[in-house]
C-alpha cells in the first residue's frame, strides 16, 4: 500500500476577533483609504439591512434574506472584483452587488416584488440573484467558459452557502471548472446554518474548502469576518483565475439573522451560540483596528453613520415612490417577441383591469 494523494487546506486570518493583527498585513492595507472604503461598504450594508427588515416588519417589503454578520464576505468580493468581471450571486449577496453598482433601490424592488430590481443599470452582465440553491454555480461555469473561449482576462465569481455545497450542481460545477481550467471562483459563505440545519448536518468533511480538492481545483478557508483576509484572498483568487486555476474560498462566518424574515431561528439555535459569534463581528473588528491605527475617530464614525443613513433613506424613498409595473408587463420580455399564441391572454389581462362599464369602481 502506498499513499497516492495528499492535501492541505490553508486557513487565512489577518485580524483576530478583537481587531488585532495576527499576521503581517497585505500590502493594500498600507492605503487607509482602501480600508476605510471597505468599512464604509460594510456599514452601509448593515444600515440597509436594518432598514430592509424594518420595512418588512411594517408590511412595506416582502420576505427578505439578511446578510447580518456576513457583510465582510460580500464587501470583499465586490471590492476585489473588477468591473469587467461577472458576479453570479446567491440570495444573500447584496453587499457584493452594491459594490458592483446595483442600487439599494434595486435590491428593495426585488424583495419588494418587482422584477425591475433585476434590471439594474450597472453591472449589466451580472446575473440576478438565484433563489434555487446552487443552480447558479452551473451558470458561472458557462460564463467562465465564454470568457476563456474569447481569450478574455475576465473572471466569474459565484456565491453559495454552506447548505448549497451539498448539492449536485455545486459538485458538477467545481468538477467542470477543473476539467476546463476556467477563470472561476466559488465563494462559500459558510454561515453555519442552512435554515435550521447546522453545518454538521450538511457534510462530514472537515472543511467545505476541501471539496475543491476532489475537483482538482484550489481550495482554502478564510476568516469570513475578517474583511482584510477576505479581500486579500479574493484578489489572489482573481490572479489565479486569470492563469486558468479555479478556486473555492470557504468564508467562515455566521448567520446572525434568521434565515429570512419568514424564519424564527430561536426554534433551532441557542442564544449562547449567537453571543459567541456576535463577539466576532466583522464591522466592530475593523473599527477596532482602524481606531487603534489612528485612521478612525468617533467623530468620523458619527459623520459616516449620518451620511449612510441619508443614503439609505434616499434609496427607501425612491423604492416606495416607484409605481408598480403595468400588469401586462408579465407578458413583456417573456419572449423577445410575444408569440401570437399568447397575445389574447395579454389582451385578456388588460381587459380585466379596465374599469367596468357604468363606473362600478366608483361606487
Amino acid at each position: 500500500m502506498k499513499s497516492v494523494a495528499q492535501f492541505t487546506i490553508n486557513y487565512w486570518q489577518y485580524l483576530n476577533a478583537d481587531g488585532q493583527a495576527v499576521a503581517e498585513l497585505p500590502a493594500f492595507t498600507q492605503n487607509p483609504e482602501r480600508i476605510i472604503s471597505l468599512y464604509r461598504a460594510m456599514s452601509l450594508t448593515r444600515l440597509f439591512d436594518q432598514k430592509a427588515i424594518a420595512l418588512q416588519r411594517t408590511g412595506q417589503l416582502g420576505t427578505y434574506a439578511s446578510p447580518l454578520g456576513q457583510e465582510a464576505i460580500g464587501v470583499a468580493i465586490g471590492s476585489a472584483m473588477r468591473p469587467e468581471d461577472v458576479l453570479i450571486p446567491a440570495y444573500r449577496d447584496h453587499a457584493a452587488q452594491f459594490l458592483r453598482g446595483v442600487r439599494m433601490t434595486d435590491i428593495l424592488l426585488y424583495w419588494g416584488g418587482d422584477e425591475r430590481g433585476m434590471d439594474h443599470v450597472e453591472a449589466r452582465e451580472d446575473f440576478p440573484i438565484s433563489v434555487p440553491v446552487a443552480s447558479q454555480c452551473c451558470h458561472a461555469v458557462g460564463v467562465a467558459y465564454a470568457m476563456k473561449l474569447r481569450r478574455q482576462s475576465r473572471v466569474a465569481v459565484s456565491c453559495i452557502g454552506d447548505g448549497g455545497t451539498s448539492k449536485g450542481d455545486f459538485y458538477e460545477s467545481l468538477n467542470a471548472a477543473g476539467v476546463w481550467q476556467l477563470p472561476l471562483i466559488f465563494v462559500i459563505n459558510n454561515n453555519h446554518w442552512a435554515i435550521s440545519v447546522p453545518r454538521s448536518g450538511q457534510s462530514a468533511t472537515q472543511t467545505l474548502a476541501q471539496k475543491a480538492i476532489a475537483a482538482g481545483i484550489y481550495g482554502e478557508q478564510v476568516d469570513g469576518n475578517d474583511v482584510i483576509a477576505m479581500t486579500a484572498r479574493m484578489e489572489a483568487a482573481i490572479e489565479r483565475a486569470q492563469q486558468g486555476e479555479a478556486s473555492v474560498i470557504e468564508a467562515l462566518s455566521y448567520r446572525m439573522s434568521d434565515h429570512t424574515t419568514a424564519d424564527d431561528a430561536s426554534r433551532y439555535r441557542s442564544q449562547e451560540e449567537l453571543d459567541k459569534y456576535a463577539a466576532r463581528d466583522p464591522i466592530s473588528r475593523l473599527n477596532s483596528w482602524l481606531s487603534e491605527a489612528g485612521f478612525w475617530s468617533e467623530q468620523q464614525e458619527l459623520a459616516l453613520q449620518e451620511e449612510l443613513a441619508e443614503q439609505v433613506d434616499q434609496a427607501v424613498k425612491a423604492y416606495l415612490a416607484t409605481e408598480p409595473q403595468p400588469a401586462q408587463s408579465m407578458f413583456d420580455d417573456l419572449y423577445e417577441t410575444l408569440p401570437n399564441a399568447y397575445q389574447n391572454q395579454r389582451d385578456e389581462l388588460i381587459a380585466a383591469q379596465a374599469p367596468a362599464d357604468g363606473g362600478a369602481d366608483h361606487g
Partner: protein
Amino acid sequence: MAEITLIEAVTQALAWEMANDERVLVLGEDVGVNGGVFRATVGLQQQFGAERVIDTPLAEGLIAGMTVGLAAQGLRPVAEIQFMGFIYSVLDQMLSHASRLRNRTRGRLSCPMVLRAPFGGGIHAPEHHSESTEALFAHIPGLRVVIPSSPGRAYGLLLAAMRDPDPVIFLEPKRIYRLVKEEVPDNGEALPLDVCYTLREGSDVTLVSWGAMIKETLEAADILGEKGISAEVIDVATIKPLDAVSILESVARTGRCVIVHEAARSGGVGAEIAALLAGEGLLHLMAPVQRVTGYDTVMPLFRLENHYMPSVQQIVEAAQKTLEFE
C-alpha cells in the same frame, strides 16, 4: 443532390450554423470525438475544434446550467442531452432559469439556447430510453418546444431554433432518425417556428400529430384515402407555442379531428388541443374529438412496447368513428 436522413439533416444544420455564426457552440456528452451516440454531431469537432464542440463531463444539470451561462454571455449554445430519459435533472435549469431569465431581468439578459434530445419509443432500447415527455416542457412559459418529423423540417426548424432569441427545446424523434431520406438543400434556409405544417390536405377529417407518429398518421391517411375518406394531416411541429389558428381552421373545414401522439394520454399536448377545439371550435365539430395515444402507464420495456405505441389501425378506426358519429 444526395438524399439525407433526419439525423443527417440535424448534422447538416449544426454544421451550417457553426460555419456561419461563430457564436454557435455544441456541447454535451460524447458529442465531440465520438460525434454523439446517434452521430448527430459527427465531424463537427474535426471541423470546428474542441473548444466549440465540447465533450462535457457526464452531468446533465451542469450541461443545461452552463448553457444558460454561455447564452447570457451572448453565445449561441446548442446542448445535447443524450436521451430524453436523462433530461429530468435539466428541468430545474430550464424552468427556474432558462425560461425566465429574460423576463425576470426585464430583458437585460436573455437565453438564446437550444437543448436537443432524442425521444420516443419503438427502437427496442433499454429502460429510460423510450419515453415521450414533451408535455413537461410544453407547460413551461418562456420556452419553445419544437419537434421535427422529416429531414427537411429537421434542417429548417433546427436552423430556426438556433437563430431564435429565446430558449428552444428541440426534440428529435429517434425512431425515424434513419427511416426516411429526402433531398434537403444545404442553403441555410430556416423554416418558421410557432406554426403547424399541413402535410396533406383533406376535407373529411383532420389528423393532428407530431414527431415519429407522423409516419403512422400519414399511413393511416393513405388507408383512409383508399376507403374514400379524405384526411388532412397536420404536423404540429412547434408544440409550444401552439398554432391554434391552423388547427382550428382545418377543423372548421373538416368538422372532425383525431389527435395522435405517442406520449401518455392525460394532461398533455393532445389534451390541450382537445380543449382548444372544445373551447373555440365546438360549433364546427360534427363528432367528438378522438385521441389515439400511448397509455397512462409507465413506458414498458421493449417486449411490450409495440402494445403501447399507437398503431396505424387505431388511427384509421378513430377517424372512421368520427365519420360514423351521428
